[in-house]
Structure formats: C-alpha cells, structure tokens
C-alpha cells in the first residue's frame, strides 16, 4: 500500500437502522480533519459494506448502529472481510452499544467501540495514531 496517499475511510450504516446523525457528523469531521471519507448511506447490508470497502481500497471501516443489532451484523462484516482476505482493514464501531457487548466486538476485530458521549478528539486521535503507524 502506498503510505503517502490520503488515508481512506468508509463510514457505514449497516442494517435497517436509519439513525444517521452520528455517522454524518463523523463523516464531516473526518473530512475536515483531512481524511478521504466515503459514506455508505443508511440501510446497507454487510455484503454491500464489504464490497465497497474492497472496491474502494479503504484503510478503515467505521460502522454505526443504534438498533441493537450490532452483535449479529458486525460479526457478519468481520467474517466477510476475512473471506475477502481484507483483514488488514482497521475496523471500528459506534452507537448505542452496551458495555457488556464490547469485549465480544473487540474479539471480532473491532479495534475501538465508541459509545454515546465519546468526544470527537478521542476518535480523531485514535485514528491519527493508528494510521500514522501504518505509514
């Protein structure tokens, strides 16, 4: 991978959930921070998310869910990425996700899970650090 190109992030809404306020905020904030951001729009399937991620050769996927369907749908995304041999893509998640589900999501490969009230600065510094290391 060319380390000098602008890092590319896919922000996705997976499942049937239409709550996109947080996702749209993150899209804009990451663009303002200099990242190239692709936004999936709402109501995407795990298959569509992974297809886009692979086709667009993204470095990071951030998925937002507020519907409670995170355990099932995020597991499916991680599984499909492995099948596509795209396990190098950094995964993170955000939304109304109870603390007790976070260890499970981390074990699936989600590097960070940001829950309501997480400051933007924390999300940005996590990404900056991760992507700097990757260069």
């Amino acid at each position, binding site marked *: 991978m060319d380390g000098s190109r602008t890092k590319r992030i896919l922000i996705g809404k997976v499942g*049937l959930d239409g709550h996109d306020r947080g996702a*749209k905020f993150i899209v804009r904030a990451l663009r303002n921070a200099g990242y190239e951001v692709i936004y999936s729009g709402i109501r995407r399937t795990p298959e569509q998310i992974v297809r886009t991620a692979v086709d667009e050769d993204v470095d990071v996927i951030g998925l937002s869910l507020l*519907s409670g369907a995170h355990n099932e749908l995020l597991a499916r995304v991680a599984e499909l990425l492995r099948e596509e041999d795209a396990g190098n893509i950094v995964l993170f998640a955000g939304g109304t996700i109870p603390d007790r589900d976070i260890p499970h999501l981390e074990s699936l490969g989600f590097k960070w899970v940001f829950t*309501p009230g997480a400051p933007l600065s924390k999300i940005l510094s996590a990404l900056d650090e991760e992507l700097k290391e990757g260069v």
Partner: protein
Amino acid sequence: MSDALRPHVERWKTEMLARSVEKIPEQADRQVTVSGTPVETLYLPQNVADQAVCEGYLRQTGFPGEYPFTRGVQPTMYRSRFWTMRQYAGFATAEETNERYRFLLEQGQTGLSVAFDLPTQIGYDSDHVLAAGEIGKVGVAIDTLADMEILFDSIPLDNVSTSMTINAPAAVLLAMYIAVGAKQGVSPEKLTGTIQNDVLKEYIARGTYIFPPAPSLRLITDIFAFAARHVPQFNTISVSGYHIREAGSTAAQEIGFTLADGIAYVQAAQAAGLDVDRFAPRVAFFFGAMTDVLEEVAKFRAARRLWARIMRDRFGAKSPRSCMLRFHTQTCGATLTAQQVDNNVVRVTLQALAAVLGGTQSLHTNSRDEALALPTEQAVQIALRTQQIIAHESGVANTVDPLAGSYYVEQLTDRIEAEAEAYIKRIDEMGGMVRAIERCYPQGEIEQSAYRYQQEIERGERTIVGVNRYTTKEDTQPDTLTIGEEATRRQIDRLTRVRAERDEAAVERALDTLEAAARSEDNLMPLILDAVSAYASVGEICDRLRNVFGEYEEQTT
C-alpha cells in the same frame, strides 16, 4: 374602566367556555394553588384601553379553543382533562409487548403507543434475509394478524386509544388493527388512535421508507379517504417533526419542515379530490421536546398559529377542527447521556414540562437508560411517574397557556413562526416538499445544524452536564434490557405455523387482487384489509406493492 377586550372575553365565555365545561367539567383540584389561592381557567391582558392593542392580541394570541389556537386547542385544556400519557413501547414478540402494555395500563397510563421492529417498519417478514439480527430489537415484530391478536390480547380496543409508529406499511397495520377490533366485536367506527403514516419525513430524517414519493402519497390519500368513511375517529396521519429534531434541526426548522410536509399531504389529498374539511380534522402532529424549556413552549405555540393560518388562508378550510394543530410530544432521546444516567430523569422532567406548558395533547417521556438500550420496566415506570407528578403536583396544568404574555415567550413565538414561514416559502419556491427532498434541501439544512451543535459540544462552548463538564469516573452501567435469540426463533416459528395453517388459495387471491388494484387508481385499503384478514403477512403485502411501485433509494454525498 374601559377594557376593549371585555366584549370579546364575554363572547368567548358564553360561546366556547360554557359549552366546553358542560361537556367536560373542570376538575375541582385544579382550581386552587397549593396554598389555596383560586386559579382561573384563563388569564388575559388587563385594562386594554387601546383598540389596536386589543386587535393585536386577538390576531396573534386569541382565546384557547379558537383560531388561531395560539393558546391551545381546547377552551379549558388540562383543567378538564390531562393530556394522554402514552409511553412508546414494544420489543421482542407480541407476548412480551402485550405484557408491557398491561403493566403500563395498570400503572395509570392512558393510551398505548406501539413501537414496531425495523423489519416490520420496512415491510420485511421476520424470515427475510434483511431481518437477520433485527427482530424485536427496536420494537415488536409483527408479521401477520396472528401477532396483532396476541399484541392486544385482553386489551379491549373500545377502551383504549392506540398510536402506531408505522409509516410505509401504515395501511397494512391499520388494516390489522381494524381486523383485531372486528375479532373483539368492536366496530371500526369506535376505534380511536393514530397511525404515523408520514413518509416524507422518512426520506428527510428517519429512514424507514419503502416506496418512492408518488405511490407513497397515493397510499396516504387512500388511507385518508377510507378512514373518513370507516374509521372516522382515527387520526390518519401524525406529521412528525420529532425525527427531524432528533436528526439535529433547530426549533424553527422542525416546525418549518414539518408543516411543509403537512402542506404536501393536504395538497395530495385535495388533488385526489378529497374535501379539506373532511380529512383535515384527522391530521395530527408530533414534535420533540428539548431541554430549552421556554424555546420549546414558544415553538409549540408558533406551530399552532402557523398551521391554523396555512389551513385557513392557503387551503380555505372552513371547519375550526381543520385549523387545529393537535400534537403528540416525545422528549428528545438524543439529549439523553450514557454518562451519569440518573441525570436523564431531570432532563426528561424539564422536557416534559415544556410539552405541557406548550399545550400537548399526549406525551411520551423517555426513560433514563435509553442512551444505552431499550428501557427496563423500572426505568419506564419512573418516566411515567414524571408525567404524573407534573400533572398532579406541579400546578402547571391548572390554568391554560400559563406563559402567554411573557415578553420573552411571545417574542420568541413570533420569531419561530417567522423563521418557520421562511423555510416554507423557500420550499414552495422549489416546487414543494417532494422536490425539496430530491434536492436534499431539508436533509442538508438539518445536517448543518446538527454539525454546528455537536461542534459546540466538542469545543466546550455548550455544556452537557456529565459529558463535557462535571464528569465523574463511572465503573459500571446499570442493567439494561436484552432481547434474546429465543424471541427471534419463536417469531419465525409462529410465522411458519400461520403460513401452514391459513387458506393459501385465499391469500394468493387477495394478494393478486391487491397487486392488480395497485396498477389502477382504486383505493387499496379495502383490499389490504381483505389480505390481512386472510393472514397475508406484512412482507407479502409490501412485496406485491414493491412489484408495482418500486423502491426508494437514498441520495448520499
């Protein structure tokens, strides 16, 4: 003493107040303060000597129960009857949700409000591939009439009003409700309640659309026409600003975009040949309540006045009921914090107070744990108690529109009305709300407001207690509700069983007839009623309509 307002007050008292009190008397406990001082139904400007001031008051503010309804839609408001306490609830399957409803009714709730899961809201059956992981998560799963029968088991539909948050498949769920009523021996004209049925705001802010705008508007007007004849006490639409606000809009945007949606529905119904005074009295609204109490009060007052003017001046409505903006309120879930969750009880109290001071007809109070998950029974009980305390103990329900005449609230009311009107004008210039949505105008405006608001929090310019100030170290989250796998299995099993036991030929016939009618201009409601009565599922019915209408796709940047 010369008081120019006097004759108008006398007229209101004899024409409106006396008649209203005769029908629904005022309650004795609401006529004194806690200290024993008498409280009047209505307080007014005193000694208005100037004719222009008097006319200004009548034009902008007026009397409760009368055009332009700034002070409320009923002459006595809560002195006679409190708002309907209606907690939005639904999870897992019909059994669990039925149990929650019966608990809420036992606790003094006065109306039901059904939350459906996302597959139901988007017209997928529980065994559809896209329903995986979503069954019973944000609401109750309903596939067929069999589920709906369980949902309302031991709840007589002639004794309760039911609000259903259902939009794209609203016709299907209304038909199921009518069918359950029939099984209970309750005739359709006795049914009371509301279907949300507001698809335009789904494109703008909420996301549970199925069909493109034109056929969606046709389904909506079919419902208007059918309901006016058969379920005349049902609110056929709840034009919703709540989700627009939750997506991050300002108060004026909430009102501007919602009333612009309302205008689009009235235009569609008129274009379909319906008489405005026949359907408009059953048009209801739904707004959010944020924590900025006085801005919210002004917003509700502005919304009532502006809608009354739109209905009379733009649509030529003659009936006062057509001009009356009746609304449900929900406290704004996006204001709840996952940090120090008990603080949310206080936020909800302030928001509920705003709704009551603003003259709401019904109210849902959020539970303190909703930034984490669906609420537990205990959390819901506190939320309901919050309403009961405001109703019985706070005294704010003792007089109508108690904040009228406050310099601040009146000026803010005028300002929000003017700003909302400017949005409506802009949308008119674009050719109406459907065009504006296609150009992403309301979506873009909301997104900008949301971004600004969040940036203020990030930069610490706006304080959110417990989040960016006054933070504490917390180690454990309270227990939250979990929806188990077992519920999903039970739901799919029931659907399989219903499919095996029903008269398959009758179902196919009903669905074929429906699909053919969808290609014509016939009203689809009677045919949807036939299909659900034959135990056709939500997904099967929606699929037939998808064949004809196609599906909507969101535009993204």
